[in-house]
């Protein structure tokens, strides 16, 4: 498990918006070099957990402790840039700290979009935009990368390529990665831990790497190169009557659903 000096640690974390509790009793810690994926259905509090760890929202109970001087590279779920704001990519990467052209070029090359420095952010494709966000996060030499549904809107090869990129980045920078995904069953195979969240932590464990199994081929086809893996949920508790949370369907059913649609 985690060391005595995690980068970020939450104990008994609870968050409420306007009196409604969206997150409760969350114990969480992440170490340097670790990749943790948080999965959960919509409204399960994934983004809230990330925002609480960032310090944007104040916990209603429990506490969050960040290592001293922790540098966070944050990739938000959505970034709306107003049409009235002209913003070239190189300028975006220099926010809020000025970066040299050489560093900007290196960061863009690292995320696989070396030629977009002069383009306006508004003209980028979805995949390019995500990579520009990631490049900006990398420029702060982060101790931890926090990504909120970074693969939204990407197709499956795109997701696989992005996950591989994250893995490379983790190796180069030796940083931790905390990634939020709404896909309950297909996760990054490089994840050390998967946490299933639904208002609280339902279960956690390692993803099942099944790249060679025929089921995997049936699900993902070829060409994703083992970047994706399945996560087997093990919900060993039942929710009492006061809890309006459902558990996600077990993975076997989903497998069959997906396989049968092919």
């Amino acid at each position, binding site marked *: 498990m985690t060391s005595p000096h995690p980068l970020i640690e939450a104990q008994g974390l609870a968050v409420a918006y306007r009196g409604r509790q969206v997150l409760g009793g969350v114990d969480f810690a992440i170490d340097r070099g670790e990749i943790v994926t948080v999965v959960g259905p919509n409204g399960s509090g994934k983004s809230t957990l990330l*925002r609480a760890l*960032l*310090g*944007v929202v104040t916990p209603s109970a429990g506490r969050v402790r960040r290592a001293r001087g922790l540098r*966070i*590279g*944050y990739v*938000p779920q959505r*970034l*709306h*840039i*107003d049409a*009235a*704001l*002209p*913003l*070239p990519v190189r*300028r*975006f990467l*220099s*926010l*809020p*700290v*000025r970066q040299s052209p050489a560093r900007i070029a290196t960061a863009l090359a690292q995320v696989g979009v070396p030629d977009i420095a002069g383009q*306006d952010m508004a003209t980028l494709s979805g995949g390019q935009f995500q990579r520009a966000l990631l490049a900006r996060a990398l420029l*702060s030499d982060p101790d931890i990368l*926090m990504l909120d549904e970074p693969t939204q809107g990407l197709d499956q090869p795109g997701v696989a390529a992005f996950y591989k990129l994250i893995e490379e980045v983790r190796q180069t920078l030796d940083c931790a990665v905390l990634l939020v995904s709404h896909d309950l069953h297909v996760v990054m195979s490089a994840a050390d831990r998967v946490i299933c969240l639904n208002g609280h932590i339902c279960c956690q464990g390692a993803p099942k790497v099944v790249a060679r199994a025929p089921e995997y081929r049936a699900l993902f086809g070829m060409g994703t190169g083992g970047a994706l893996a399945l996560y087997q949920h093990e919900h060993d508790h039942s929710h009492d009557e006061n809890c309006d949370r459902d558990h996600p369907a077990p993975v076997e059913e989903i497998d069959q659903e997906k396989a049968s649609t092919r």
Partner: protein
Amino acid sequence: MLDDFLIRALLSGLAVAVAAGPLGCFVVWRRMAYFGDATAHAAILGVALALGFQISIFIGTSMVALMMAMIVSALAGRGWAMDTTLGVLAHSALALGLVAVSFLPNVRVDLTAYLFGDILAVSRFDLGVIACGAALVTALMAWRWRALLTATLNEDLAHASGIDPARERMVLTVALAIVVAVALKVIGALLIAAMLIIPAAAARNMARSPEAMALLAIAIGMVAVWGGLQMSLRLDTPSGPSIVTVAAAVFAACLAGAALAAAAQKRLGR
């Protein structure tokens, strides 16, 4: 040199243009147009209070404008429907101010000067205050530029970079109150918001970066001040509306120019 009322008028107008340019860009980027209106309209209430309590007009207007800006900012933070809230606040403040002025005993106030500006009547003292206020706002903008820009893009992103978005919002709020106070004499309460928005909007099509847009907005504001002053002088028109009219003309020209450039590019591309 400062004895010449024309020079004083020009300098005060240019000072306002310099402060309004970058601030106006943030007003446009953050969609705070109505916010500027509410703050500017509250200035009339400030005038009434300043006259009533016999304190400096600058102090009265900046205080009331600051209060209004902070109220609006706090309401926005609580997720109120801003369109309606600002509509209520902006017009109530203006109406309340006009009513309050009419109650003042023994004071015959020329309200037109405060509503539409009276740039030709700027005194040496006025000029000094306007220049100081404009310098303060410009320095504030320059100092906080990157943080303001980051917080404008995305508040969570700002937080992750160690920037407090609430503090940056406060910087803009204070800057807005100062600009309203110093621009009252030059532009007038009714059209201060226009001086923030129109130069920035005109600069948008020509600018490739946020900094270029701010500098262009300053330049366009300066052209508008110079042109408006000439117009006011020759045609005896109120100064504020004259300056805004010229700004609007520049905006239209920029728009037409951008459309022509786009059309030419299209033809070349074929």
